[in-house]
């Protein structure tokens, strides 16, 4: 009885927490949009098109964060063999693919008016495209086998090995001659931008990070429900086999 009440309470608390996180994400994204599109001044060189950076940079940051979570959760799964770590890694990989795709598309929308081309085989762009392919492969591998422990093991190996590309993407602008600009905010000697522009970028980074947290809670709930549905559907078959 007490356990049932505790479970019900836990469920209610987590759902209300999820709703609160959703509202916080929506408000933060709204504030970020106003700061990015209205308050921040246009760039003296690039003009209005520089505003794309307020969505492109946070999307790229979340791609890094998502795949870092996949990396940590994959190590934790291989160490503990607990399903919850595999669920965390799968959820974060799916969200990471969304944000990597978004970062690439937003970069293309910025590149056309500034560089004069939608795409070029620049080291940053190429390594980011490779990153996207690695995590699409990660999600594809998860669909190959129905055996949950084999699926989790294979995915965890890709989640760990695939993460090698993240520092390569980040440092590509330092290691090779690149058309893509170098670090602007997190660099030795302090940020290259200041005032309202820096504020708009930092608020956008915070808003996207809250959105990531919300999407993770939602995606984890979906993962639990889908696993339960699969388990329930298979349980009479398992009984019949016995």
């Amino acid at each position, binding site marked *: 009885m007490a356990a049932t009440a505790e479970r019900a309470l836990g469920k209610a608390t987590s759902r209300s927490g999820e709703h609160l996180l959703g509202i916080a994400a929506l408000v933060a*994204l709204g504030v970020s*949009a106003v700061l*990015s*599109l209205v308050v921040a001044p*246009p760039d003296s060189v690039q*003009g*209005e*098109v520089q*505003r*794309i950076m307020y*969505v*492109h940079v946070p*999307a790229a940051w979340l791609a890094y964060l998502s795949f870092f979570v996949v990396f940590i959760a994959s190590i934790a799964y291989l160490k503990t063999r607990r399903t919850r770590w595999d669920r965390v890694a799968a959820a974060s990989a799916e*969200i990471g693919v*969304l944000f990597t*795709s*978004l970062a690439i*598309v*937003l970069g293309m*929308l*910025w590149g*056309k*008016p500034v560089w004069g081309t939608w795409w070029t085989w620049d080291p940053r762009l190429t390594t980011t495209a490779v990153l996207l392919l690695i995590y699409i492969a990660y999600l594809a591998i998860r669909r190959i086998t129905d055996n949950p422990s084999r699926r989790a093991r294979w995915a965890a190996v890709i989640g760990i090995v695939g993460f090698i590309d993240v520092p390569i993407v980040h440092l590509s602008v330092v290691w090779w001659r690149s058309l893509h600009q170098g670090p602007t905010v997190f660099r030795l000697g302090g940020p290259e931008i200041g005032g309202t522009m820096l504020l708009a970028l930092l608020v956008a980074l915070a808003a996207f990070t809250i*959105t990531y947290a919300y*999407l993770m809670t*939602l*995606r984890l*709930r*979906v993962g639990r*429900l*889908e696993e*339960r*549905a699969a388990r*329930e*559907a298979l349980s*009479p078959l398992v009984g019949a086999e016995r």
Partner: protein
Amino acid sequence: MAPNAGYVIAAFLVTALALGGYTLRLFARARLAKRRVQTIADRRRDG
């Protein structure tokens, strides 16, 4: 309209559609999984 404003509008629209679309897709997946669990439970109860 400022030069290149179309690219900015497109970028913010793409972001809103991607985030909104993915959130709605997750809601739909949750609803579908819940319905599946409920259908199996109903079938079991009906024998």
